[in-house]
């Protein structure tokens, strides 16, 4: 027994030394900046920057082939940090943007045309008459965006809607392209008033399809400052360039407008139970 222990321990020691020596002898020279930058990057390897992975972006930045703000996920803070490592002055930082699902029509308020049975994926579901929702602009709730989000920032409510957590969202825009309905938009993190509907259908149709859809009555357009909410083909759309007072939400007869920030309170969904 003792011999075995000694032999194994000896082997381990020799191997350890061997490895340590090899690491010294065959070390690859890496610009220390690359490692530092990589440290500063979010490290999710989401690919939103256009390069395969964070280490590749770090190398490009260190070589000067990419800007210090090339990481859309990290935003201003990371850009500042990277700029410091590179010894460059970084101004601005832009507005932090987060994803928002512009639909609030969950299973309790939005009508369904049929029972769907098939691949659990929105894009596949959309191949059959555009999905089971009567509203052709509605969230299908089959977690395609939640599944693709590299940061786990999208959760599926039990009532059948996708909801982005603005705290976790890094603005990488992966979900925007993945949604077959194209109803995920990037909005400024700071902004609080949102119109949670994407339907361009006429008011009567919307009423039939969904209890919280925009019917295009334009009351909010009149209530809000000039140009802050604009009509686009039967749909009121927030112009995020302008400020909108939270009061505007009160005039919406369909409760489509939310004024609680991107983090939308979820009272109705909480009672929803299994969807």
């Amino acid at each position, binding site marked *: 027994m003792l011999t075995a222990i000694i032999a194994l321990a000896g082997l381990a020691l020799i191997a350890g030394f061997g490895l340590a020596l090899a690491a010294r002898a065959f070390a690859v020279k890496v610009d220390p900046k690359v490692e530092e930058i990589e440290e500063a990057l979010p490290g999710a390897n989401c690919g939103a920057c256009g390069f395969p992975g964070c280490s590749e972006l770090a190398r490009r930045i260190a070589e000067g082939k990419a800007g210090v703000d090339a990481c859309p996920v990290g935003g201003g803070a990371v850009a500042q940090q990277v700029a410091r490592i590179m010894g460059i002055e970084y101004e601005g930082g832009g507005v932090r943007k987060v994803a928002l699902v512009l639909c609030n029509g969950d299973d309790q308020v939005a009508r369904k*045309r*049929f029972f769907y*049975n*098939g*691949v*659990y*994926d929105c*894009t*596949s579901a959309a*191949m*059959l*008459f*555009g999905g*089971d929702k009567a509203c*052709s602009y509605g969230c299908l709730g089959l977690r395609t965006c939640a599944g693709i989000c590299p940061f786990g920032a999208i959760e599926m409510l039990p009532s059948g809607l996708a909801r982005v957590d603005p705290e976790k969202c890094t603005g990488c825009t992966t979900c925007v392209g993945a949604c077959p309905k194209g109803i995920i938009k990037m909005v400024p993190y700071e902004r609080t008033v949102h119109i949670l509907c994407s339907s361009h259908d006429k008011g009567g149709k919307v009423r039939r399809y969904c209890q919280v859809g925009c019917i295009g009555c334009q009351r909010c357009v009149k209530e809000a400052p000039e140009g802050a909410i604009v009509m686009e083909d039967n749909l009121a759309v927030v112009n995020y360039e302008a400020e909108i007072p939270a009061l505007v939400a009160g005039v919406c007869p369909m409760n489509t407008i939310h004024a609680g920030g991107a983090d939308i309170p979820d009272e109705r969904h909480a009672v929803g139970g299994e969807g």
Partner: protein
Amino acid sequence: MAYGAFAGGVHPAYNKELADRRAIEEMPLPEQLVVYFTQNLGAPPEPIVKKGDTVRKGQVIAEAKAFVSAPVHAPTSGTVKSIDMFPHPVGTDMPAAVIEPDGEDAWAEGCNVERNTDSLGPDEIKKLVQGGGLVGMGGATFPTHVKLSPPEHKKINILIVNGAECEPFLTADHRLMVERADEIIEGAALFARVLGVERVVVSIEKNKPDAIETMRSRSADRKGFSVAAVNVLYPQGAEKQLIYSITHRKVPTGGLPMDAGVLVQNVGTCFAAYEAVRFGRPLIQRVVTVTGSGVAEPKNILARIGASFEDLVRFCGGISGDTGKVISGGPMMGVAQYSLGASVTKGTSGVVFLRRDEIPQYVNDPCIRCGKCVTACPMRLNPSALSIFAERMAFDKTDEFNVLDCIECGCCAYVCPSRRPLVHHFRRAKAEVRKKAKRAG
């Protein structure tokens, strides 16, 4: 001769007895007809009517601008009440003209005139077929005149008249062969004349002995005609499989039947060709099998294009309350409808109503790799691997595993013990692969 030798395939419950003895009945004109402007595979034709126009029976309401396209005609005389989006049986909403019949059912000028077909040359016949808006009536709706125009160097020497009707439940082609054998044979002879084909094989699955008998006796004195009784095996009626069964020729992947020197025409298309060429009647009606356990009286109906499924149901005595699925086409390849609001198109061979307790439900369980799909696949693909790749969104891999060769016959999903939605996966994968190919240019 050994027929029916393709590998793979399944034996679903055929349920043809529901309607195969029911003679074709002509349905009275409904209150309104919803005629989709797009009823063919290929380029959509352009609408040339607007709200308020009066049309006459057989008048063109959508013009084919491209070669791979077929015009659409008014199925009766009346007024265009509106033009709006309607659920198309293929699975999307599409624009259609709502025509309110005036009750006259009066033909437009130039239509419904009998013509001596003996003197017509190939090009004249082709022109009449094209003008009649003919498409493949088995369900694929590929414009017929395109199939009749092979490039110079492709020599076609066999015409297969497809009366296999391998889809369960459907009996429209069966009844047509029993009741209109002469017209089908005449139509097939016209196609043969266009292409200069000497050999015409009418292929019918062995489960339709009366159709085989009728077609045999009526075509006995015709030179070059023969009737092949093929094995009952789904998908016997799929073009590539049928060609192999009859001729032992394989259509190369990505190719067309003409690459194997064969032209395949559905019996319904042959009938429509005879009507169009001989009498100048464009394709404005077809035989639709309305069947399934959910419908009171299964029937084979001669219905106008544009008659809604609701009208069909009413003509068949209604559907039972526990009807859970409405399928346009057969249950193996047809498209499930969400309402009865869709209307008959040129490709609607049947409407099947299934009760809730008969509908299989798909689940997204993992593949256990039992290989039953590999055995069943008539295209010799590996559906198991394809579905796993599609699930992981590895669409490049699905391309590598030839997903584009999938004919969506449904054999794999039919046998899958895990009840995976295999065909659904492949339709998605095909769409993604095509999208990528398009982007690549």
